[in-house]
Each structure stands twice: as structure tokens, then as C-alpha cells.
């Protein structure tokens, strides 16, 4: 923008530069720039002051919000704990599982459930094993439905509604439900694996009781295979087949579907 001569004269007069008719345009620009910077500085100071005040308010609100969320999370955690215990009971794990309250270490004891290749032991443990296995197989055969039941029961237990939860908490809830559901499943599988190990031990002491034709076929193939990778693969296949066999036998003697079969 080009200054008109009249305007330029007025500015010079205001800046007491009009006494010097030799004033250069650059000096004029520099003076104007300094004025602009001074103004800007004022505004900046005002802004920073404002922000400091506002941030303090915001952080207070944020802290408050986090407290609320933390409280909700605590509720949900408590509810999840309750749900976990409830499902442990449902799956009969309480009869066989011991959790160290301090360390949280889990131990399993299925003494007497499978003896001499029979489903033995006291009535209650046997019932727990059977009913728990049936319930677990039924629940875990539809993981989506199971997860939904977990969510509903958890929210109900925590007296919360889904809408009240922020998305982040919802996501956390979903992942936590999945984790706990998988953990309980692992525990059921642990119990059933221990029972299978007991039965497998019986077969190991009485190998003649294994009458699976697939096992005999594998034995025939292993017999003619020279030591090497192929034989090792066949041995691995034999082990896998023997596990399938023992779980099938366990199911037969206990009349309990195995979670292993859902894999």
C-alpha cells in the first residue's frame, strides 16, 4: 500500500519526524513495525494469562472426570471378579482349584476322579466335574453369547448402564471380559487335561487297552520308517492321536464333552 503524501506527512508529524524533511521511508517502516510488535506483545501476555486460568479449570474438571471413571472401573472390576467366581462355580472348578490369595497362584487337584481307567471318586467331585464340563462346553461353544452374558451380568452387578460408560471404558470392559473368559476356559481345560493325564497314565500302564485302529496304523508306519524327520513326524502324529484317543475315552467314561474338542 502506498502511502499518500498527506498521510505520510501526518504520520511523520505524529512521530515528531516531520522536523526532519530528510527522513527516509525505511525509518518510517521500522517505527511502524515496532509499534506493531508492541501491540502484539500486549495481546500475547493477555492470552497466556487467560490460558493459565482456563487450564487450571480444565485440569480440575479432568481430574474430576478421571475420578468418576476410576470409580466406575472399580465397580466394574469388582463385578468382573464376582462374575469370574460365579463362572468358576458354574464350571465346577471350585472342587478342584485352589488359588493362593496372596500370590494368586493356582493349583489343581483331581485326586481320585480318574482311577484305573474309571470315573471314580466321591459323588460331589464327580458331579462337579461332569456338570461343570457340560456347562463349560455349552457356554464356550458360543463365545459371542457367552461374552454378551458376561457383559450384561457384569453391568448389572456393577449397577451401571452401558450408555454411562465412555467408549474407552467400554473397550476396556470388552477386553477384560474376554481375558477373564479365556482365563476361566484355560482353568477348565487345565482340570480336564489333568483328568486326561490320569487316564493316559492308566493306558501307559496297560497299553493293550488302546485299540484305536489309527494308532495301530501309525505304529505300522513308524515300524518301517527309518530314523529321521519323517519318523519324528510320525511319532508326533502318534502322540497327537493318543491325545485325541484319551480325550475321547475321558468323554466316554465321564460322559462329559471336552473343551479340547471345541478347538
Amino acid at each position, binding site marked *: 500500500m502506498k502511502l499518500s503524501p498527506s498521510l505520510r506527512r501526518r504520520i511523520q508529524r505524529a512521530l515528531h519526524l516531520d522536523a526532519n524533511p530528510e527522513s527516509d521511508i525505511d525509518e518510517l517502516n521500522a517505527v511502524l513495525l515496532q509499534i506493531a510488535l508492541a501491540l502484539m506483545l500486549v495481546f500475547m501476555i493477555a492470552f497466556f494469562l487467560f490460558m493459565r486460568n482456563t487450564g487450571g479449570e480444565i485440569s480440575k474438571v479432568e481430574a474430576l472426570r478421571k475420578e468418576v471413571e476410576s470409580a466406575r472401573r472399580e465397580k466394574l472390576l469388582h463385578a468382573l471378579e464376582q462374575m469370574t467366581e460365579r463362572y468358576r462355580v458354574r464350571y465346577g472348578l471350585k472342587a478342584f482349584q485352589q488359588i493362593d490369595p496372596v500370590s494368586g497362584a493356582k493349583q489343581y487337584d483331581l485326586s481320585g476322579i480318574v482311577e484305573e481307567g474309571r470315573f471314580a471318586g466321591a459323588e460331589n467331585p464327580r458331579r462337579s466335574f461332569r456338570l461343570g464340563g457340560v456347562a463349560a462346553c455349552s457356554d464356550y461353544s458360543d463365545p459371542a453369547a457367552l461374552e454378551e452374558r458376561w457383559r450384561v451380568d457384569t453391568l448389572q452387578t456393577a449397577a451401571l448402564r452401558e450408555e454411562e460408560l465412555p467408549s474407552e471404558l467400554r473397550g476396556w470392559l470388552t477386553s477384560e471380559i474376554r481375558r477373564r473368559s479365556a482365563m476361566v476356559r484355560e482353568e477348565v481345560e487345565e482340570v480336564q487335561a489333568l483328568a486326561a*493325564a490320569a487316564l493316559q497314565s492308566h493306558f501307559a500302564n496297560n497299553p493293550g487297552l488302546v485299540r484305536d485302529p489309527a494308532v495301530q496304523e501309525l505304529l505300522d508306519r513308524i515300524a518301517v520308517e527309518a530314523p529321521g524327520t519323517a519318523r519324528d513326524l510320525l511319532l508326533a502324529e502318534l502322540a497327537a492321536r493318543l491325545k485325541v484317543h484319551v480325550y475321547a475315552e475321558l468323554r466316554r467314561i465321564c460322559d462329559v464333552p471336552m473343551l479340547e474338542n471345541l478347538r
Partner: protein
Amino acid sequence: MRYFFAVPLVIVFAVLRLAAAVEEGESRRLLDQETGLLSARLLAADGGRRWSAAPFPEAEKLLFERMKADPIGAASVAAARKDGGTFLRDALAADYAAELRRLLEPFREELQAETEKMLEKVPSGLLEKKFASVFPAAFSAARKRLVAEQRAELIGKVYPSEAELEETDDAELTRLLTGRLLARRNAPLFEENLAFVRDTVIAPAIASGRDQQKRQLELAERLPVAADLWTASEIVSVLEAELAAETAKWDDDKIYTLFRRTRRAIADRAARLPRERVVAELPRRIAVPDYAALLAGEPERHLTPEPGLTALCEAAGREAVIETFRELAVPEAVAATLAADGAVGTAASAAAAKLVRPALLDIRRKATAAQFEKYCPELEANRWRAEPAVVEAYYAGGGGLPPTLPEFEFRDAPLFVETRTAIADRVRAVLSRAAGEVAEQFRLVAHEYDMVIGEMRKRREENVSGWLGRWFGSSGVSLAEIRELYEAKVLKLYNAGQREYRELFDSVRSEIDVRSRAILQQLEAEPETRTIPEREERPPEHVIRCRIRVEAEPEMLHVRLNGRTFSAPPGEKSERRLIAETVGEWKRFSEAAASGAARFEVELQIGGGPVYYRFVAHLREELKTAVAGSDASVSDELVR
């Protein structure tokens, strides 16, 4: 038993192992552990079953070496069996353990030591089962091999070798083996036992060797050879193998390998066998060419039997050789060698000569007979009769070569030589028979003449007319009547027999005419002055009759005199030689027989067979020449 006590222990251990509470995650590890143990047990059980059923080929070798290492302990079969049984059981157990170690190698880290040891211990049931299946045969084979080895060693020290048998005579062998036997002994042999050893040990050993030499040679000649083997090398190797297999079956203490002489005999047989096969097969393969077709198609090319017959025989022989090679499937290289072998060629020629030539000759004979019948049916049917003039000319010629009759000339006809000869022979025969009839007529003429003349001499003093009338049937005679009556008489006597020519021949008639004139002349002369001195009265003389008999066979003429026979085939030269020999013999006979005054009467008797009058005429002429200057007479007479 230890296994059965171990099982409950393992069960208790397993139960105790699983009785305690397990940490999280341990279940799966336990399951894997038990699964591994089960896998190992299953493999062990399966491996054990297979091991039990599998053979144990080392058993025989192990038992053999054990017994060989301890010959004293193994001397008794029972002790060896007991010791071998224990030894083999241990070996089987070790073998089982090794097999299980191999099978369970992948589980070595999982299995506990005691479990592993238990699995490697062979169950007693399996061990006994395998032992029962392996030991008897292995012990028996090992024992048999060991005993045979020892026996061979014993025999090797007593029996001679093949080279010694072939190169040394029995006496030297006996000395050699006796010395060998004595050298083995620590103590000397008593003198009395020397003979015993020689007779009961050495002699049978040598006899066995000699017998085997002989049997090997017999087998080398007798063993059959497959018909598809032709090269000497193949035959030699097969024969040697078969002979070795046969000798192995012999029940001798020592069986000798093939002697050098046997191998030579095999090589000789292999060299000649292909030739012998071909030569033996040749006669079956030789075929008679279709000579009949050749004779029928091109008779002009086969007018003479040779060289056609020989060429056909040679061709048949060559064809037979080729056919034999083809039928016996002789390889090309061998066939080429055999084809160049003189013996094969000779055999082919001999077979052709024996089988083909007679057949060809027979065919030719039949063709000749057919030609003969075709061209001379009348002659063939024995209906042809020569004209009397021809017969007379033949008779006058002395029965030599038959005249060339135009009706039998067949100048342009392709007649075989044999046909022409048959025609000529048949014509000659017919003419000879006819000539015989001429001769008979002449004889009758002469006989009647002699009768008449003799009667005339006797009744010289009688009424000529009277006895002439009785003889001639008429008292008045003229030449014509005499001739007519003479002819009638002769004809009557002549036709009393079976005749082909019922009429008198002209020459006979001429003779009758001449003799009739002679008779008439006799009649017309004075009885008291009629003296018809045929000969001068001679003082009684010693007459020696010499009979020469001439007979003929189809291919040979025989002249018999003085107890000797001279023979020659028909033919001018041979007949001349025969005549010379006959004349020479007669001269010798006459010189030897003549003592003092003697007159020889040589009588030629024509006997059986086709005796050519040419020959008789020549012989008669030669004899007449020989007796010329003497009073000997030569006459010929047909005697059948």
C-alpha cells in the same frame, strides 16, 4: 517275572505321581509326559511283536563260531545244544534290547532310566517264542557246517587230489597216501597193519577216485544239452555246471571237482555237438525234389539221368542243410561255420544219396515206364511182333544189335535214354524170342533132315519108294512134294508148342528148299552106289565134349566152363574181354585134356536171361577160329 513285579510298582508310582496337586500349566505337561510314555510302551509292544516274528540270520553264524571256538565242549551234540541254547538266549535278549533302544531313542529324554531299562528287557514269552523258532534250524545248520568242515579236513588228508589221480598210477598213489597217513601219526605203524591200512583205507579211497573219474567221463557224454545252446563256450559252461551239480549228489565221502580229462571231454563234445545235431537232423529234413514235374515239364532237358540227378541230389542236400539250420534255430555265426564243415556236407550228400537218389531214380523209372507206355503201347503190352523179315535178318545177324526200326526210332521225341534202352531191350527181347523160334524152326528142319538122312542110310537097301512113301506119305516124290511135306512136318512139329509166329520164316523155307533138294538128290542117287560120305570114315576116336554155358542177368553176362565162371557187363569191350577169357580157358582145357588123338566137340549152351545172339555169334566165331585146323566142332544150343 521281574517284569510282572515291576508293573504294579510303575502303576503306584504313576498314581503317586498324579496324586499331588499340580501347578497351573502342569496338567498339559503331565498329559504330554503320560502320552510320551504310552507312545513308548506301544512302540515297545509293537516292536517286540515284530522282533519276535522276524528272523535272526546271525544265529547260525554265532552258534557255529561258538562251537568252533570250543571243540572239546562242543564234541557232544547234547552238550553243544545246551550250551548253544543258553548262548543264543543271551544273544536274543541283547538283540531285543538293542532293537528297543533304537525304537525308543526319540523318547530317551522323556523316559526315566528304570522305565527305559524295563522296556529294553525282553518279555519271556517273546524270547521263548523267538528262541523256539530260531534255535533248532540254526543249531542244526551250524552243527552240520562244522561237522562238514571237519570231515573235509579229514578227507583232504587221506584222499588224493584231482591232479594226483590224473597224473599218478595206482601203485604210486598207494605209496603216496600211505606215506601221508603215516606222517600224521605220532607213533609208527606196525608192519602188519601196513597192508591193512593199504587195503581198507587207501585202496577204497583210490577206487572211489577212479570210479568218479569214469563216471564223470560218462556223464560228460551223456548229460543232455539244451537245444538252444550252440556255441562251444555256452555248452561247456552249462555242461560243467550240470556235471558239478550231478557230482554233488553222489554219495561218496569225497566228491572230486571236474578232472582235466573230463573238461577236455566236455570241450570235445561241445565242439562236435552242433555238428552232430545237424547231421542227425539232416535225414529228417531232406526233401525229394519234384522231379516228376521236371520230367513232365521239360523232358528234353532230362533225357539222361546225369548230370541232373546229381545236381538235384546236391541241391536237396544243400536245402536240407539250410532247412535243418532253420528248424534247429541255429545262430547265424554257428550256421556259417557248420555250412563250411566238410562233415556236414558229407552227411548231406550221404543223406541225399540214401534218400533222394533212390526216390529220384524211382521217379525216373516211373516216368520212363510212362513214356514207354505212351510211345510204344504195343511193345509195352507185349503185343508187338516184328515182321518175319526183320526177325530173320536179326537171326542172320547172330542176334547182335537190334535193327533200327522206324516205328521205334522216335527221332524227334524227347525220349529218355532209359526209355530208348527199354525200347531197344524190349525189341531185342521180342526179336530174340522170335529168333529163338527161327532157330527152333531151323533146328526142326535140321532134325527132320537128320532123321530123314539117317533113315535113308539105314534103309538104303530097302525100297526107297516104300519107306519114302511111309515117311512122306506118298510114294512118288518130287521136290515140291518133298518141300511141301517137309514144310508141313516142320510146321506141325513147330506149332506143337506155343508160338508167336505160326508160319515158317522165309529163310527156313529156303533152308527147307535146300535140304529138300539134298534129300531128293539122295533119293535120286543109286542106293548101292549112293554113298553119301558126310565124312571120311575115321577110325574110332576119343571125343571130348566141352560144354560152355552162357547165361545172362540184367547187368551181367556169365560164361561157365570147366568149372569156372567168367563174367562181364554187357557192352562191346567187356564182351570181347569175356570172349577172350573164355577162348583162353578153352585152349588151356583142350591142351590139358588132349592126350593122344581126341576130337573136341564144343557145345555152346545158351541159358537163362537175355543172351544176345551177337555175343553168341562172336563167341562161336572165336571158338571156331581157335579150333581151326583141328577136328573140333562148335555148336550152339538154346537151353531154357
